[in-house]
């Protein structure tokens, strides 16, 4: 459901209406206010970034979107409807896939199996049918395998398909995590610092993959970064957070010239 008109980006991509909307979200941990009355929207097909210094509350926001945290106040709207309180696995089944700031993979399982778990949101065959490797389960397994192989090819990790994830270097793990999220064919893909801890070359690869995903599949992406430089070229619109508050929201150019944002990043006391 679209309740707003879209817009056309500088590079000519058509962005759709609102897919997800955060309305006056506040999140408290005891006395700590991690998020304070923040509202913003994510539109269909866009790359939306949330940036801000460490501790600004970016990961908390992503956790609210993906259902890992329940906001103390405020509403989450998704596909035109207010979302009732939900467990993370239910949110995942609604087409919200994510990666984690500190990579969360199934270390004992192979790359292929890890990416296959991304298809769990599309599981329809019952347990009995799976246990007995019966009709529907088998068809589904084949279909899942096909889709997963396509994602694996797309992210250029064919050569490590059968490697246990625990043995992979950091940069590749990040890519496998992206593959697993992508395998879910999500309506919205949430990436928590996808480039953190990477070297320059790995960062370039990851940027390219993110843009390709958005281009090729039209996937809506919401990504978090603390490093301002990296995301400016990637994103269509940027939310800037600092100390749990929203201090800026707009195109990369608008945000770059916003005095509050400049102050926050230069560490001006406030």
């Amino acid at each position, binding site marked *: 459901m679209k309740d707003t008109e879209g817009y056309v980006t500088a590079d000519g991509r058509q962005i759709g209406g609102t897919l997800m909307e955060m309305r006056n979200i506040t999140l408290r941990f005891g006395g700590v206010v991690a998020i304070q009355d923040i509202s913003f929207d994510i539109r269909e097909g866009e790359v939306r970034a949330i940036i801000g210094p460490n501790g600004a509350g970016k990961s908390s926001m992503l956790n609210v979107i993906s259902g890992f945290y329940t906001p103390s106040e405020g509403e989450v709207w998704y596909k035109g409807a207010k979302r009732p309180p939900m467990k993370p696995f239910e949110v995942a089944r609604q087409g919200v896939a994510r990666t984690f700031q500190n990579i969360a993979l199934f270390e004992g399982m192979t790359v292929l199996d890890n990416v296959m*778990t991304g298809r769990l949101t599309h599981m329809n065959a019952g347990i009995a049918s799976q*246990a007995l490797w019966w009709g529907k*389960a088998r068809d589904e*397994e084949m279909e899942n395998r096909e889709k997963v192989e396509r994602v694996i090819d797309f992210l250029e990790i064919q050569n490590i398909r059968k490697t246990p994830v625990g043995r992979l270097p950091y940069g590749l793990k990040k890519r496998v995590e992206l593959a697993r999220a992508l395998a879910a064919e999500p309506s919205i893909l949430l990436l928590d610092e996808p480039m953190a801890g990477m070297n320059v070359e790995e960062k370039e690869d990851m940027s390219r993959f993110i843009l390709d995903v958005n281009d090729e599949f039209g996937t809506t992406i919401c990504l978090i970064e603390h490093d301002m430089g990296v995301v400016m070229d990637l994103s269509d619109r940027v939310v800037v957070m600092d100390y749990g508050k929203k201090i800026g929201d707009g195109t990369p150019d608008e945000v770059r010239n916003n005095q509050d944002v400049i102050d926050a990043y230069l560490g001006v006391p406030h």
Partner: protein
Amino acid sequence: MLNDIFIAPFVDMFTAPDFLMQVLWEGLVSGILYALIALGFVLIFRSSRIFNFAQGIMVVFAALTLVGLFAMGIPAWISVGLTLVVMFVLAVAIERVVLRPLVGQPDIILFMATIGITLFLIGFGETIFGGENKVMITEELGIPTGDTVLEPFGGLLILQHLDITVVVVATLLVLGLLAFLNYTQMGRAIRALGDDHQAALSVGISLQTIWVLVWFIAGIIALVTGIAWGARAGVSFALEVIAYKALPVLMLGGLESITGAIVGGLMIGILEKLFEIYWGQPLLGGNTETWFAFVLALIVLLFRPQGLFGERIIERV
């Protein structure tokens, strides 16, 4: 003395290879059951960090239910099906009534809750089925009872048909479980949950579904081991001890390792039998099978604290 420990047993093995094969075979029969039970523990532990103290009583409960249903005049194989239904209902009930409300509590609380389940099942089982010993419905289930005599190396090897059936069925069940865990989406979900809770949630895995599933698998395992063990020893609350035989297997194989449970179970079944026959009986007056496995596990742990197949030595921080 040194001769008795280090030389004579091996001479015996060498000079009577048919008898050695007999011993190994009997070790294998026990071992595969230990492996199966240990697998039940591992699946539950991996997906919920719970050490399931109730596994033993589940064996008793499954066997009692089967025999009890049959005694009510229900045909044997239909009784098996109904017992499976009962074990499924039990799994759902445990998830709803015990696990779900206690989620997030310290592991030791959940462990104590499984002791509670054990006590409940003992009381409940006695009320419904009575406390007296019963006979497993071996023949009624069509399990063959005779034996086959082979003559390897010109000697004698007696294979009980019951044992052959147990080995075949248990092996199929273990292989089936492995295939389920490795090649189906539900199986991957079970393994995934064991590896990383957060990540599992993020790909849409429901803890509750998996918990019911692993407890139901433990119930299936309980029924199979209950039939196999009950066919030899009768059906009574003493059947519970089969589950304790899995403890040293877990010490050896690790609480989280599926391979460890299988290899560890087979190893302990075979080694304890070998030790009993070639060392225990001649040197220690026998009856070593009750404790040998624990001592073996302790010795191995001295040298390999992570167990034989420990997957994780480093504490996660």
